[in-house]
């Protein structure tokens, strides 16, 4: 695992997102599943129950891919990176609206963009020998 940037990143991000998902439940007491305004994780990142579940699923997908193999880790890194990029852009327009079912705030958007940049950069840029060998 330590030889592949994709596997290492997927594993580290997977653990981090699982922890973030679990910690999120400590600030969402009394917040409903799709509430448009949730609790503040670390006093900064707004989350509701749906947001926590999404973090848990993303963390699990990354962790499983990270401990599996390079091709799985690359695929999941690119897929989740692209999803985060899309969510970051959509999130800019969701803030303050009634369809903000993930209770996204500006700090969330920054974190989503940062995650997208790192996941896509590593997914697209690293472990190219594996990709070439598979082609």
């Amino acid at each position, binding site marked *: 695992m330590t030889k592949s940037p994709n596997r290492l990143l997927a594993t580290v991000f997977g653990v981090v997102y699982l922890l973030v998902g679990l910690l999120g439940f400590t600030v969402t007491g009394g917040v409903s599943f799709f509430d448009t305004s949730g609790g503040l994780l670390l006093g900064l990142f707004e989350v509701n129950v749906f947001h926590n579940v999404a973090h848990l699923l993303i963390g699990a997908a990354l962790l499983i891919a990270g401990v599996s193999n390079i091709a799985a880790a690359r695929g999941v890194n690119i897929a989740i990176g692209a999803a985060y990029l899309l969510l970051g852009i959509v999130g800019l327009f969701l803030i303050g609206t009634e369809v903000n079912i993930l209770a996204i705030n500006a700090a969330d958007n920054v974190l989503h963009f940062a995650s997208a*940049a790192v996941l896509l950069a590593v997914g697209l840029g*690293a472990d*190219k020998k594996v990709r070439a060998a598979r082609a």
Partner: protein
Amino acid sequence: MSQIVRTWLGFAAIGAGLVHLALVISSPLPIAAIVLLLGVTEVAWGVVTFVRDSVPAPRVACAVAIAPLLAWSLLVVAATMLDAVWLAASLPLLPMAIASIFELFVAAVLAAHLRRVQNAVGTATLPALPSAGRYLVGLMAGALLVGALTTPALAATEAGRYAQPHGSHDADFIPADDGGSGTLTGIRLPEHGGH
């Protein structure tokens, strides 16, 4: 060129491209067309730099990285000499200065790379791949630095001013009745952020 430096080039090009794209809406048509083309080119080149094993078109990229800085300098000089502030007013200092830092970084790295390749004809070997941990630390450091520079640059553009979330105003706030005296005294405004 090492894999880590190539990711830095990619991030720097995408950062410069985003800043240039954000300047499109505040610029008059001729300048808007130029920064639009430049921004799209820079973002595309940055993405391709990540995806490919080598830097795409390094000589052309080096020239394209320097050209906007020269053009902006000439525009500012012309605006000053002709006393026509409007000429350079659509290109604010902070975003252009930060985009120029990215461009200079790209140009300097590419120039050094081209010189190294030229001096090592016939003996060129691909650099060894860095360890996964070192690669990730290098990549994240580059992403953090470019993000930290790009964010204030984007915020200082017209597009950034529209993107600023309006914060949480207290919708229930009602100004105190002045009793018809025409002067408002003793008003305590609720705390609010976002401006």
